[in-house]
Every structure is written in structure tokens, then in C-alpha cells.
């Protein structure tokens, strides 16, 4: 068992005594009536002024280092998010479609080809640690090299992000950079912001045209249609089916002349008893049998059509 520390008094002064402990420390301590050669069990050691300063310094140092640690942590997390977490993505369309994932700082985190050409374009491309400007420039170069992009071509840039402001800023920066870069290379490439009208869009348009062409046969009879449409609005419980047909310019032209003959015949051009002005040849596609179930309601249509005439007058 280790003995308790005791102190051998070596020198005594008025205010203090020099004592020696068992570990070889020479200590100045309060002289509580000691004499040289005494052995004492407890002392009141002197505190040196430089040690006092050191203690306050230590407290300040500890507080400062703690504050620094907190700052570093907060800043570090922010910086990590700023540098390494996904914030938005750039959709770059040359013909190859490429999606570039960006951090908030504009650092490229990932690149993915969105179509076959895009995948081919970025297959061997090393993007790690590069910023967005370098990557879009190099991808444009790569596209030129692989002959996806030629003079007078077009690149479309679209940025998606949590913040619209940031997305707009990125779009402008990328577009400016690409413009500069391609101009330096002497290429006249149009850089557009937003999605490009691709093949699907044109297909849609064609479909629309087709549907319009289906309605083309209507114009000759469109005046009737208009009347019936007007009538159906006036009188909803007349037993006549409300039937709206898209108007066409030709129907507007004939609308003024049609009412004079139509009321005597029938309320609608869609049913016909053989005398329909819509189909004089009897080949109308709207009616297959000669009798119409709507013929009994002809008077109401006459009324409505005469109303129409009055209005017109």
C-alpha cells in the first residue's frame, strides 16, 4: 500500500516555508508555525501569479476552442450541404439528353444519360470534382467531337431546383458560359432555355390536324348546327337533344340565309326525312332511315328559329 504524502520542512520564512514532498517537489507553502526538520501531513501551497494567469488563460482558451468547434460544426454542415448534397439538376439537350445533378455551390455530383445517345456521350466522361461550367463546356466539346453537335446546331438547357431563383441563376450562368465557350471555338450554336419541342410535340400537332380534317365536311351544314345549338340553349325541355358542334368559319357565312328554309322542314339537320338541306342526295351520314323521331318537335324549332330571325333583324 502506498504511503500518504507528507512534507519535510526545509526552510522557514515569515510568510512561507519551503517544504519537500515525497515525489521530489519543492513547494512554497504557508508557514503554520513550522520549524526546519518538521514533517507535516497537509500544507497550504502558494499559488504563483503566473499560474493564476495560466488558469484564466486556460478558461478563455477552452471557451474559445469550444466556440470554434461549434462554429466549425455549423459551418461544416452548411458547407457540406453547400458542396455535396443534391440541390438541383440541369437538363441538357443537344440531341443526346443528359441530366447533370448539381449541389448548391454548382459542383457536379452526378451525370446521367437520359437517352441512348446521352448514355453513350457520358459513358467515359469523368466529372468528379468539376464545376458545372467545366462540365457543360466539356460535354458540348464531346458532343461536337462525337458529331452530335455541328455548326448552327442547338443546345437546350433546363434547370430544375428547389429554388426557382437559383434555377434561373444557374440557367443564365450555364447559358452564358456555353455561349462564350462555343463562340471561342467559332461555332454558331443556339443556346435555349427551357425544354425543346421534340418529336412527340410534332406528333401531337399532326393528330390535331387530323381531327380538324374530320370536321371539315361539316362547314356546309354548320348554319343548321348553329341554329339547333341556339335552340337547345333557349329551350331545354323540348325533347331535343342538345348537340353542340364545333363552329367553323363557313357556318358563320351561311347562318343568315339558312333559317328561311329550315324551319318548315325539321328542327335539326341531323335527322332527315329525305328533304334535309344537309343531305340532298340522301347519303347523309347522320341519318340512315327516312323517319325522324324528332319531327314532332318541329314547331318549337320554328319558334326558336323565328326568334333568331327577329334577333337578326
Amino acid at each position, binding site marked *: 500500500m502506498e504511503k500518504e504524502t507528507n512534507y519535510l520542512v526545509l526552510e522557514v520564512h515569515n510568510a512561507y516555508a519551503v517544504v519537500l514532498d515525497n*515525489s521530489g517537489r519543492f513547494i512554497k507553502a504557508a508557514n503554520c508555525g513550522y520549524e526546519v526538520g518538521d*514533517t507535516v501531513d497537509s500544507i*497550504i501551497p502558494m499559488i504563483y501569479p503566473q499560474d493564476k494567469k495560466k488558469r484564466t488563460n486556460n478558461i478563455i482558451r477552452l471557451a474559445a476552442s469550444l466556440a470554434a468547434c461549434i462554429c466549425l460544426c455549423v459551418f461544416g454542415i452548411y458547407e457540406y450541404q453547400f458542396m455535396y448534397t443534391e440541390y438541383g439538376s440541369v437538363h441538357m439537350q443537344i440531341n443526346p439528353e443528359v441530366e447533370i445533378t448539381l449541389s448548391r455551390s454548382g459542383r457536379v455530383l452526378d451525370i446521367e444519360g437520359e437517352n441512348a445517345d446521352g448514355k453513350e456521350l457520358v459513358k467515359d466522361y469523368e466529372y468528379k470534382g468539376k464545376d458545372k461550367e467545366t462540365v457543360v463546356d466539356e460535354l458540348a466539346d464531346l458532343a461536337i467531337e462525337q458529331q452530335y453537335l455541328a455548326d448552327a446546331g442547338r443546345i437546350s438547357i433546363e434547370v430544375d431546383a428547389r429554388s426557382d431563383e437559383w434555377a434561373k441563376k444557374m440557367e443564365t450562368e450555364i447559358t452564358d458560359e456555353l455561349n462564350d465557350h462555343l463562340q471561342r471555338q467559332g461555332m454558331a450554336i443556339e443556346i435555349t432555355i427551357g425544354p425543346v419541342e421534340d418529336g412527340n410535340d410534332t406528333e401531337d400537332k399532326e393528330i390535331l390536324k387530323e381531327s380538324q380534317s374530320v370536321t371539315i365536311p361539316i362547314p356546309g351544314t354548320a348554319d343548321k348546327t348553329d341554329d339547333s345549338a341556339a335552340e337547345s340553349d333557349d329551350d331545354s325541355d323540348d325533347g331535343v337533344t342538345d348537340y353542340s358542334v364545333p363552329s367553323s368559319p363557313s357556318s358563320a357565312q351561311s347562318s343568315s340565309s339558312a333559317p328561311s328554309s329550315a324551319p318548315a322542314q325539321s328542327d335539326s339537320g341531323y335527322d332527315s326525312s329525305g328533304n334535309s338541306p344537309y343531305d340532298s342526295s340522301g347519303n347523309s351520314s347522320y341519318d340512315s332511315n327516312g323517319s325522324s323521331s324528332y319531327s314532332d318537335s318541329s314547331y318549337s324549332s320554328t319558334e326558336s328559329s323565328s326568334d333568331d330571325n327577329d334577333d337578326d333583324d
Partner: protein
Amino acid sequence: MNAGHELVEQVYAAKTDTEAADSLIRRYMGFIRAETAKYIHRAPVEGQDEELSIVLLAFYEAILGYEKNRGAFLSYASRGIRSRIIDYYRKEKKHAKVTSLHEPVQDDDNETWKINQLENPENEIEKSHHTSATRDEIQEYEKKLQEFGISFSDVADNCPRQERTLQACRRVLSAARENPGLLDELLRTKKLPMAALSEISKTDKKTMERHRKYLVAVLLAFTNGYEIIRGHLYHLTGNRENSDT
């Protein structure tokens, strides 16, 4: 104003000179007693009131810590004394149940102190012989140190207060003990064989230079003689000598 300036000069002289410090303290004993009386509410008795010892120590600490820009010395010392006494009372609170040996007790109509009634387990004569022998040895040691121009106060001021530095000094001591020739060289040349000790103990020369006085004192204690002091340093010498003693 002039007296204040003189006092500041004396304080500055006392910072490095222990004699000057002692004489300054003697001169201001009245102030020190008055300061103690503030806390114990009676005149202090020397050698009996621990508060007086603490106020004396605080006064000495104030001498060492005083700077001209800290105002008048006596009010600076007074503040130091106050905080030291507060510290002391805080520590004493922990031992509130301990009674004083100087507590008066009634013994057969005679009033005496508790300490006189306690049975002393040690043989008084033997103890006094031992103390006397220790005192002689310490005086011898002090003389030897003075040959090197070192006093015990110097050694205490030069003693490493950080455990790591103390360990480094202990390494130097063990290196010297393993090579008694180096201790002889120290006695002969009155100089610390710095290069050899540094090489053997793998201690930085700068550290050794900074604690030169302390190292000289410790190495001297391990030269011939000084058995009592060596016996006292059983933590330093390890269990080997501890078991011998």
C-alpha cells in the same frame, strides 16, 4: 505619494530577493495582523491562528504578483488576502466536524488544551532525536546547495509544476543514478553535466536548462549522505528503496 513610490520599489525588489521580501513583510506585520483581525474579529496569535499564516502567504503572493498598473500595493494585497481567506473558509467548511487540538477542555478544575490530554503514540525522545538529525542533514544540504549559489527558495521557484516536466526531471535523475560518474562530475565541477544527462535520459536540453536549479538540488540529494532526505523521497526512488526503509 513619495512613500507609496518607495513601497512600490520595495515590492519590486522583494519579488526576486527573499531577504528583501522577509524584511518588507516584517515591516508590514501591523497591516497583516489588522487584515487577519478583520476576519477572526480578534487579535491573531502567531503560530496558532491558521488565518494569520494564510494572510502572510497571501501578502507574499501579492508581492510576487503586483504590477505598477494595478493600483496601490496595499489595496491590491488586501484584495488578494480577502480572496485567499474566502478560499480557506470554503475548504474548512468540508472539515467542520473536526475539532481543534487547541480546544480548551476542563480537567480536574484546571483548564487545559485538548492536545495535552491526547496520548502520544510516538516516543517523544526518539522523535526529537530524529527531528534534530533531520535538521542537521537539511543544514548540510543547504550549505552544499549554497556552494552552487542556490537556496531552497530558488529551488522551490524553479521546481516544475507540470507533471510531464516533473517526469522528464525524474528521467534525468534515474540516468544520473545509473551513472554515478555523472554525480561525481557534478560535485567536482559544480556544473550540471547537461550533454551527457540529456543524451542518456533522452530529455530535451532546453527543459533541463529551464529547471537547472531544481535538477542540481535533486541530484545533490542523491550524492553521498542525505539518507533522511532520500528516505523521505520514497515516491521518487520507487518501491525498491521503500522496501529497504
